[in-house]
């Protein structure tokens, strides 16, 4: 019953001084808003990445040459690890854990001429199995086959974006395009995969036989990465180990600690991205947390001023029978209420920002309930922490001096 009355007195005092209350809350509004926004951004980005990578297929493995000295001091001769077409064939034949295996050779961003003009896209040389590994269907025409790879045929399969840009409203199948003066015949168009994270467009790609890209565009026999899929999605780790073992034996290395290739699974990429984003979220959260502490100090500052300004009021309360504890409680309740209101307004701000960010960012930004709860609890704690000192100062005032205060 006592609490109820003091609560009302505190609420009264807040409502009777709206401007002062708002100014007091401002720091908390901004602080909580910033924390909620940044944590939500981090969480949403994480969810988007998980979605994105999950869409690639959980059993997908990337095999790339290991940095030359990885795995020990034995690479004294400074040997550069590389993957050859023969390695890819050996991998395909020897493995039992793998389903499909496709080499990939990249030819950077190239100018493509054809259709209605020119366009820049990334060229990837792959084998027919790439389609199975990436689980990527053809929308029009056909994919190239092994015979075309063996014959270094100048054929190409376009990503949806390239098809739309160079051949709007018409089918590119059968048309000619030129990549760095090398003519290719378009034999198919891939289904749309959608945009990747950060706006990179997976459909802005041209697939051609790996041999053709090597000989016509790159002028070497190198393989940049190998795409492989684990036969059993539940045995991705075993597949990874098998790939490393096969490459060791192909290179005559017996030390199981020394690696010729790095193997990354979808899971490990997801994990890495998560770790990076977690770190980023924590970092941003911490920076925003600093602003929250500054907001708390702002509350303390204004409450201290307010205690001075309200000295006479406190004197009156003490004179008519308030105990120091009553004054302390009232001021603490005021501080906590101000922080809670501020926290709620700040969370509201975050919701507003999330709506705007969702419209602008390539992924959906949502404010989670856990963030709201955290913000509210945290602001209450700040209220108690930074409100205590001013409240105690108020409670310890001498009634006679307080009443005399002008």
């Amino acid at each position, binding site marked *: 019953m*006592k609490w109820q*009355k*003091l609560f009302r*007195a505190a609420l*009264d005092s807040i409502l*009777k*001084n709206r401007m002062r209350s708002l100014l007091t809350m401002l720091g908390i509004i901004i602080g909580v808003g910033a924390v909620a926004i940044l944590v939500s951004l981090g969480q949403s980005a994480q969810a988007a990445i998980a979605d994105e990578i999950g869409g690639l297929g959980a059993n997908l493995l990337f095999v790339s040459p290991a940095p030359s000295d990885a795995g020990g001091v034995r690479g004294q001769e400074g040997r550069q690890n590389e993957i050859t077409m023969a390695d890819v064939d050996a991998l395909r034949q020897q493995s039992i854990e793998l389903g499909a295996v496709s080499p990939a050779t990249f030819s950077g961003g190239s100018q493509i001429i054809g259709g209605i003009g020119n366009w820049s896209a990334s060229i990837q040389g792959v084998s027919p199995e790439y389609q199975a590994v990436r689980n990527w269907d053809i929308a029009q025409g056909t994919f190239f086959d092994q015979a075309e790879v063996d014959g270094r045929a100048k054929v190409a399969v376009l990503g949806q974006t390239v098809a739309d840009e160079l051949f709007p409203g018409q089918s590119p199948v059968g048309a000619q395009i030129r990549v760095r003066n090398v003519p290719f015949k378009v034999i198919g168009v891939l289904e749309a995969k959608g945009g990747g994270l950060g706006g990179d467009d997976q459909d802005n790609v041209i697939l051609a036989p790996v041999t053709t890209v090597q000989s016509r565009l790159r002028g070497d026999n190198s393989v940049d990465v190998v795409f492989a899929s684990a036969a059993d999605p539940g045995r991705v780790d075993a597949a990874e180990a098998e790939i490393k073992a096969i490459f060791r034996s192909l290179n005559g290395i017996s030390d199981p600690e020394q690696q010729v290739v790095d193997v990354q699974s979808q899971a490990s990429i997801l994990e890495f991205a998560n770790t990076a984003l977690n770190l980023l979220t924590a970092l941003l959260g911490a920076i925003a947390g600093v602003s929250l502490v500054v907001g708390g100090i702002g509350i303390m500052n204004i409450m201290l001023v307010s205690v001075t300004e309200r000295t*006479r*009021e406190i*004197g*009156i*309360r*003490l*004179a*008519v*029978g*308030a*105990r*120091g*504890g*009553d004054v302390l409680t009232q001021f603490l309740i005021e501080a906590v209420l101000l922080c809670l209101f501020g926290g709620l307004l700040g969370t509201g701000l975050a919701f507003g920002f999330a709506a705007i960010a969702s419209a602008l960012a390539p992924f959906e930004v949502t404010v989670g309930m856990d963030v709201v709860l955290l913000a509210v609890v945290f602001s209450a704690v700040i209220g108690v922490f930074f409100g205590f000192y001013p409240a105690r100062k108020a409670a310890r005032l001498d*009634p*006679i001096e307080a*009443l005399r205060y002008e």
Partner: protein
Amino acid sequence: MSTPSTATSNSPAASASGEPVILTRGLAKTYEGAEPVHALRPLDLQIDRGEFVAVMGVSGSGKSTLMNLLGCLDTPTTGSYHLDGVEVADLTRNQRADLRSQKLGFVFQGFNLLARTTAVDNVLLPLLYDRTGRIKKPRDRAVEALTRVGLEHRLDHVPSELSGGQQQRVAIARALVNEPAVLLADEPTGNLDTRTTVEVMALFQDLNDAGITILVVTHEPEVSEYCRRVVELRDGRLIRDETVEDRRDARRDLATDTPLIPLPE
């Protein structure tokens, strides 16, 4: 007018019941400092239930010091003080707060109302801190107190909408609402004009007639003429304590005062 008697004379007013509400023995206050100030020298004072006492004296004579001690706002340096049978001198801060809540009502020169707070909420303030639960319907009691001071038509007005006299009446209602054993007023008419002063004294006389014990600090002799007993301090010492003879009746003064307002030429 009053006739002087000796400072030690024991002269309870006519309506006093002879039961001490205030009883001090050697009550003294010294402010320590570079040079100690003996604001109040050891004082023996008895005030009985139903008395109406004016405390007079020149500025700096110790009137407010005495009121603060009697009001349990301050602790004496030495001496004992019984308020309504309770020894106050050794009480803790909280116990003194509770005593103020239960037995005392204050009226100040500067009114000391909460700004932006209605009359009725101002009067309710002491009841917010009542720990005894003895007052059952606080709002009814506040309205009752405001009615008693003639402000039943101003319940929801905030101080800035009230005249000085009305503000002081709200303050008096606030001092009454907890049914105090003593009403302490430190220069309650100091900020008021002559007529409003008489109005406030009329209110005090009504309250005193209804049995409420009142102590008023003033340095206006006219104000003391409405009281029943006058004590005077000088340099922290009691130099006069006498019954007011021919006590003035504020109601009658107000009725006959009308011609004092000059007619426009």
